[in-house]
């Protein structure tokens, strides 16, 4: 029996993985070959998807990208024993892109069958929860605090401090809510975890529940991720069946239940208070803070609300200890970040690295430069509310504070590259347009400002009283930055202003000198 892996990850499926898996099964039957087909997550080398792996005595051998028409030739080339083929990539673990990563949070993604609890435990799963069950709540919170873990959704708030507030809050019911509304363009690490290693998220949420005394958890999942919905529910059913979730978690006497709820295509529901409103069955309108969700969150109860990656990083921190995790990274950005390379890059995918890796390394050493072969002119980091960075800033290390110093943000770690054909005035206009489409409407700077922003950019591009309208755009951005209730209106000016400051020639202004472009 030879084990063959074909991902069930939605990115791999978007390139035909299901058909490849079916063809391999059919061909094996036809040839009488004994094959066990495993549908794993993706390794995150998306330009090679669908990437097929075969387990051999030497290790797992990779082939990709595989089309259905390649399958017959794979069998002919004896790929079941690692035979050579035009699409052979060698040992998976030796592929440079993968080998140079530091995969902690995403260690099992693409390696195991995502809904096999046995495989999860074989690869170190549920050690963190077992460790947590030996500690009291304050002891768990202390380890998470000491690890230096900061919210990976983008706000970078220390996770341990958030948990401590909920632990100290009084309430008959507390909740753990996972923010899986991964709406930023250029990001997909939450999706990869949920589709490729859902138990690590379930384990992280269970640890959070045990730590703060919450017995109920919700994963608020964006509806654009239907495959993740299926995998999460399969995994939750397995965990319940085996006593890892439910009224008596691993015989500890502690209860923790988990449900998955779907959003409905509203970007604003990635904002934590809008998400809570949505979970309560309402419009996703942002709440005033205070009170913090940690004090008065879901249904008015103390609530831990964390991003997928934050929660999925907890099991390894409990298992290996705070120091192990903290020893990765730089400055106040500790640990690793699953970085997502997207847009116009030859080798788009998932790169989990310790903080400190530079944009240039990511774009060229990993990303391989642009897919079009043209120079990379701008990159947007941190989603649609993140700044555009010019080439002069590509040596910036991925570090929360280094990005803040440039009026930029690391956010959820998505990097979208554009080549020199990009029109940055058009991107600035889009940032305002997107804000207008997705605004919840509660505060005026965001609701009205975004629409006015689109109009002002249009007038600048059309050269209607250009200098006056540029002054107006800056003034409008200032109002949105200072006067919006949440990050949507409050940060939409970042892509707009960075486009204007670094690429003024696209707005009909004289180009800046390189020295000036390097300034924040």
């Amino acid at each position: 029996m030879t084990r063959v892996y074909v991902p069930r990850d939605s990115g791999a499926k978007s390139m035909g993985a299901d058909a490849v898996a079916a063809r391999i099964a059919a061909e094996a039957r036809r040839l009488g070959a004994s094959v066990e087909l495993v549908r794993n997550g993706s390794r995150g080398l998306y330009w090679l998807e669908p990437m097929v792996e075969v387990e051999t005595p030497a290790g797992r051998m990779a082939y990709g990208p595989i089309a259905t028409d390649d399958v017959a030739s794979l069998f002919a080339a004896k790929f079941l024993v690692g035979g050579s083929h035009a699409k052979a990539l060698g040992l998976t673990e030796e592929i440079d892109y993968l080998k140079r990563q530091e995969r902690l949070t995403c260690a099992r993604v693409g390696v195991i069958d995502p809904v096999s609890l046995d495989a999860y435990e074989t690869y170190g799963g549920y050690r963190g929860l077992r460790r947590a069950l030996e500690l009291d709540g304050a002891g768990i919170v202390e380890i998470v605090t000491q690890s230096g873990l900061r919210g990976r959704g983008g706000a970078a708030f220390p996770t341990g401090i958030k948990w401590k507030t909920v632990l100290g809050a009084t309430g008959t019911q507390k909740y753990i809510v996972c923010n899986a509304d991964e709406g930023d363009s250029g990001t997909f690490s939450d999706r990869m975890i949920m589709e490729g290693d859902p138990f690590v998220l379930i384990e992280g949420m269970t640890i959070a529940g045990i730590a703060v005394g919450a017995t109920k958890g919700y994963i608020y999942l964006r509806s654009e991720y239907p495959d993740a919905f299926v995998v999460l529910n399969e995994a939750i059913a397995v965990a319940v069946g085996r006593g890892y979730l439910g009224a008596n978690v691993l015989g500890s006497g502690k209860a923790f239940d988990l449900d998955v709820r779907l959003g409905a295509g509203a970007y604003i529901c990635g904002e934590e208070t809008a998400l809570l409103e949505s979970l309560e069955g309402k419009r996703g309108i942002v709440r005033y803070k205070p009170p913090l969700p940690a004090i008065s969150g879901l249904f008015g109860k103390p609530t831990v609300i964390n991003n997928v990656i934050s929660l999925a990083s907890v099991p390894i921190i409990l298992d290996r200890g705070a120091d192990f995790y903290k020893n990765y990274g730089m400055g106040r950005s500790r640990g690793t970040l699953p970085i997502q390379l997207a847009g116009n890059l030859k080798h788009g995918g998932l790169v989990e690295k310790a903080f400190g890796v530079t944009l240039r390394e990511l774009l060229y050493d990993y990303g391989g430069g642009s897919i079009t072969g043209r120079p990379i002119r701008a990159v947007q980091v941190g989603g649609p509310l993140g700044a555009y960075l010019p080439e002069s800033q590509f040596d910036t290390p991925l570090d929360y504070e280094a990005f803040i110093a440039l009026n930029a943000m690391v956010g959820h770690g998505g990097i979208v590259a554009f080549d020199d054909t990009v029109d940055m005035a058009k991107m600035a206009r889009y940032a305002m347009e997107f804000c207008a489409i997705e605004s919840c409407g509660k505060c005026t700077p965001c609701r009205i400002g975004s629409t006015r922003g689109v109009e002002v950019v249009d007038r600048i591009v059309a050269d209607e009283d250009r200098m006056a309208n540029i002054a107006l755009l800056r003034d409008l951005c200032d109002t949105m930055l200072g006067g919006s209730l949440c990050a949507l209106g409050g940060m939409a000016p970042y892509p707009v202003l960075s486009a204007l400051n670094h690429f003024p020639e696209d707005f009909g202004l004289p180009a800046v000198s390189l020295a000036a472009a390097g300034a924040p």
Partner: protein
Amino acid sequence: MTAVVTWEPVVQSVLDRLKTLPGALLPILHGIQDELGFVPPDAVPVIAHAMNLTRAEVHGVVTFYHEFRETPPGRHQIHICRAESCQAVGADALIAHAEKTLGVTFHQTTADGMITLEPIYCLGNCALSPAITVDHQVRGRVTPARFDALVAELEPGR
């Protein structure tokens, strides 16, 4: 798509199944749309009554979320990602191509009722941009030629 499904029994059965969930309204609207393809405006008072909400509250939720529809979609739905990563590799040209070949703009359905075209803002397939969904299945690296091939597969021989 010949039989006209009456919405009342569908809505009632979804309500019976889900209305006691905490924060049940989104699961209920999803349940209805999964079966009917949209949330009939006439169902709003029924949902409101069952949930002890005002009609305005239910209408507000239906219309707040981009995904909920108040009209039936075509037999197939295509969503094209408009977000930055897809723009970086030709989403705008793909959208122009789709609108031209289908003869519709976003939020419209082709005259023969076959395809509804919608924008979407990120499918999490950004390493394989441009991305679209065809009947909610994600497809990556969609060139205009691949788009035409995917459309041709929808109703072969029709």
